[in-house]
C-alpha cells in the first residue's frame, strides 16, 4: 500500500482537521462510494462522500483501498470476566452489566486489532431476563451507552428443572406477563423506548420471540439466526432484526442459508460476535462465507457495521459514518469482505489508534 500523508499547512489553530480519501468509502449502509473522502474535525465526521472539498490546512491522507466504519461487535461477553450472569433470579430487568465492566482486559485490544471499534457488552444468556447491555468503545473502554438493550432469553436455555420457569410455556408466560405489567425496564421495552435482544435457539423460540415482539410492540433484535430459515415471514412481521449466530469455517450450510433467507426476506441483520468464545476476527470470515453462499456483499458490509448497530439500538452512536458522528473508521487494503484484504489502520475519535507507520 502506498500512503501519502501531506501536511499542506499547519492545522487551523484550535481545531484538528484530517481528510482521508480512499478508492472505496463505505459509510455503514447502502453502496460503497468510489473515490470517497471523509473529513474529520476534532474527532467528529464533518463531511463524508464523493464530492468533499478539503478545508485549507487539513492533513490529507490518500489511502489505496477501502474505508469502512469501525466494525460493530454485536453481542460480546468481553471485559466482564466471570461476572456474566446472576443465577439467583429469573428476572433481573434492572441489572446493568456496565457495573461489571473491567476496562483493562486484553479482549478489548483484540477487538480493536480486528477492526471492531464498538461492542455491545452483554450479560450472558440463559436467564429469562438478565438486565441491560452496554455500548462500549474498544479503544479507551469509553462507555457510550450504559443501558443499550434489555436482554431476554426465550429459549430452552433459560428453562430450569428446579426453578421457575420450568418449561418453555412458563418461560414465555413469565416474559409476556412482565412485558404486560410494564414495570421499570420492561415498561420501557414494551413502549419501544428500550430495544430488546431476545436469545433464541431453535424454531420454537424463534416463533415465540417473534410473537412476543409483535404482541408488545418491541424494537430491537432476535439473537440467533441458525433456525430462522423457515420462519423468515414471522421474523419479518415481528419488526425485529436478527443478530446472527457466528458463522465460522466448517459451519453447516444451514447457517449461511438462514442468513441469506433473512436478508432476502427483508429482515435487517447484523453479525453476532460471541467473543471471547469466538474470535473477533471471525466476523469477517462469517461475512465472507455468507457472501460466498449468495449474500449481497453490501448487505454483508452493513451487517458488520451500520445495520448491526441499528438493530442493536446503537444506530445513533456507532457503525455509521455521517456528519456529527464520532470518526471511528478502519482503513483496509481492499474490501473487508475479501479475506485476502488486510486491516491497515484503525482510527477512533479521529485519531489513529492501531496500525499505520508504527504497526
Amino acid at each position, binding site marked *: 500500500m502506498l500512503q501519502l500523508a501531506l501536511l499542506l499547512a499547519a492545522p487551523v489553530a484550535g481545531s484538528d482537521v484530517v481528510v482521508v480519501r480512499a478508492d472505496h468509502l463505505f459509510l455503514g449502509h447502502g453502496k460503497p462510494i468510489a473515490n470517497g473522502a471523509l473529513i474529520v474535525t476534532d474527532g467528529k465526521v464533518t463531511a463524508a462522500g464523493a464530492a468533499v472539498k478539503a478545508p485549507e490546512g487539513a492533513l490529507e491522507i490518500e489511502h489505496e483501498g477501502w474505508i469502512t466504519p469501525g466494525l460493530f461487535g454485536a453481542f460480546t461477553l468481553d471485559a466482564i470476566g466471570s461476572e456474566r450472569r446472576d443465577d439467583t433470579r429469573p428476572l433481573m430487568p434492572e441489572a446493568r452489566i456496565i457495573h461489571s465492566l473491567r476496562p483493562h482486559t486484553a479482549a478489548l485490544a483484540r477487538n480493536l486489532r480486528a477492526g471492531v471499534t464498538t461492542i455491545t457488552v452483554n450479560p450472558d444468556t440463559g436467564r429469562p431476563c438478565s438486565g441491560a447491555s452496554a455500548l462500549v468503545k474498544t479503544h479507551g473502554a469509553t462507555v457510550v451507552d450504559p443501558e443499550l438493550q434489555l436482554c431476554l432469553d426465550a429459549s430452552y436455555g433459560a428453562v430450569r428443572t428446579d426453578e421457575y420457569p420450568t418449561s418453555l410455556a412458563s418461560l414465555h408466560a413469565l416474559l409476556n406477563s412482565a412485558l404486560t405489567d410494564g414495570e421499570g425496564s420492561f415498561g420501557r421495552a414494551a413502549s419501544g423506548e428500550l430495544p430488546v435482544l431476545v436469545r433464541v435457539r431453535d424454531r420454537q423460540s424463534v416463533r415465540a420471540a417473534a410473537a412476543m415482539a409483535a404482541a408488545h410492540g418491541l424494537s430491537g433484535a432476535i439473537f440467533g439466526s441458525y433456525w430462522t430459515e423457515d420462519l423468515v415471514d414471522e421474523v419479518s412481521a415481528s419488526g425485529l432484526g436478527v443478530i446472527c449466530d457466528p458463522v465460522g469455517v466448517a459451519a453447516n*450450510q444451514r447457517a449461511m442459508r438462514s442468513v441469506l433467507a433473512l436478508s432476502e426476506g427483508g429482515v435487517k441483520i447484523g453479525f453476532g460476535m460471541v467473543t*471471547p468464545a469466538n474470535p473477533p476476527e*471471525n466476523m469477517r*470470515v462469517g461475512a*465472507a462465507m455468507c*457472501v*460466498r453462499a449468495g449474500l449481497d456483499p453490501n448487505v454483508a458490509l452493513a451487517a458488520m457495521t451500520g445495520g448491526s448497530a441499528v438493530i442493536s439500538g446503537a444506530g445513533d452512536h456507532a457503525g455509521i459514518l455521517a456528519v456529527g458522528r464520532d470518526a471511528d473508521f478502519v482503513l483496509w487494503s481492499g474490501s473487508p469482505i*475479501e479475506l*485476502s484484504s*488486510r486491516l491497515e489502520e484503525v482510527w477512533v475519535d479521529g485519531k489513529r489508534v492501531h496500525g499505520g507507520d508504527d504497526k
Partner: protein
Amino acid sequence: MRTLPKRTLPALSALAVLTWCPAAASPQGDTVVIHAGEVIVRPGEVVKDVDVLIVDGVIRRVEAEIEVPDGAKELSGEVVCAGWFDPWSTLGVHPADVAFSSPSPSTRTADSYNPFGQEFQKKQALESGITAARLQGSRRALISGLSSVVSLAPSNDGHMASEEAALGASVGLTDPSSGGSTFTVGPNGTFSVVESGPKAMDPFERIGQVDKIANLLESGISYRIAHNEHVHEMEEWQKEIAKKVKELEKDFKKAKKDRDKEIEEAKEDGKEFKEEKYKEDKAPKEPKFDADKEVLARVANGELPLVIEVHRTAEIRNLLAATADFGRLRMVIAGGTETGAFAEELAERNIAVIVNPQIHASGAFDEFDGHDVGLAGVLDEAGVEVLIGSGGTSANATRDLSLLAAMAVGGGMEADAALSAITSGPAKIFDITDRGTVEFGKQADLLILDGQPLSTTTTVKVVLVGGRVVVEPKE
C-alpha cells in the same frame, strides 16, 4: 541332470516384490474444449484468451484457437485453474476413524475411507472447487498411520489417487477427553466437585513422544538394513549354489552311478535312502516380515513423506534435532503454530509446513496459543514450501479451503504462493505427479471460475475431475 535340493526355488519366488501402481485416470472417452478468458497454468503463470483441449481425461493442449474436434463438449468461462487439493482433510473418513487412538504405522486411512460416505459434504466441497484431498485418520495418535489421497469425483471408481500418500504422526496434542471432575473434601467434611477442561499433555511426555518417533524411524532403518543384507546373502548363496552345481556336474555321470547304486543298496537292506547333504542346502534366513517396520523403513528412506502435526516451540526444536540425521527423511510439519522461528532451518532442510490459517478462539487448546494468521506468509517469505490445509478435524472445513488460503493472503502471504499451497504444492509434496497444474499430460481436474481464485465473490461455475464435468454450470 542332478536336481538341486528342492527347497531352493520357493525361496527365490518369495523375493518377488509386489508393487502397487496407481491406475491411470480412467479414460472417460469425452473430448472437451474449454474457451477461457485466462488460464492459470500454474500460480504466477497466466495465459490470456486460450483454449484447453481435454481428451480421455487428460489435458492435451493449452493454446489459442484450438479447432474443436467433432463431438467435443464445449465449455467457456473467465478463469480456468487447477482443482484445489486439501492436503489435510478428513472428508469421507468416519469420525470414529478420525478419533481412533491406537493405530499402527501400517494402518491405512484408505481402508476406512468410504467412497459413498458423507455424500453431502463431498458434494459441497466439490461445488466449492475441491477436487482432491489427503485424508488422515487418528489425528491425535503418536503415529496416525498411512494417509491417502482421494479424488472427490462422485463415483466409486478411480477415486483413490494414492492409497499410501504419507505416514501421519503427531506430538503433544491435547486430548479433548482429558481433564474432567475431581473431588475435594472441605475442612468440615463437605465435598465439592471441581470441573476442569481438557488438560494439555505433560511437557516431558511431549518431548518423550519426539524420542519415540525418532526411535521408530531408527527401527525402520534397522529393519531395512536387515532385509537388504538378506538380499545380499541370497545373492551370495545363489553364487555358492551355482558354484556347487558346476562342481558336481563335473563328474556327474559317476556321481549319478554312485547315487543309483546307493539307492539300490538301501532298497536291498530295507533302509531309507539319504541324500547327501551339502552346506549350500541351507538358505540364509529371511528376516520376519513386519508391516509396520516396512512402513517406517519406507518413511526413513524417503519413499513416503512423514507428516507430523506439532505446534509448540520445544517440540519443534526437539523434533528438528532428533530427525537431523535421517538424511533421506521427507518431513512435513502439519499445523506448526510456532514454526515461524524455525523458518530458515525448515527451508534449508526442505521441510514443508501445512498451515491451517483458521483463527482460534481464546479458549482453544494451549498448543494453539502462538497462533498467528501471518505464519503462512512468514514461512513462505523464508523459502519454506507452505501448503494450506483445513486442519484434519472437520469434514466441512475442506469446503472452505479457498477461504483459508485467502486468510493466509490477508495475513501477508503472496496470492500466488497461497494458490500454489492448495494446488501444485500438495500435488508435489504427496507425489500426485499428474495433478496440480494446467499443462499437457496432466489429469484434467479443473475449475472454471467467474473471477480470481481466492476472492470471496468468485463463484465456481464448473468443476471437472478427470475430464468429466462433475459440477454443471448453473443457469
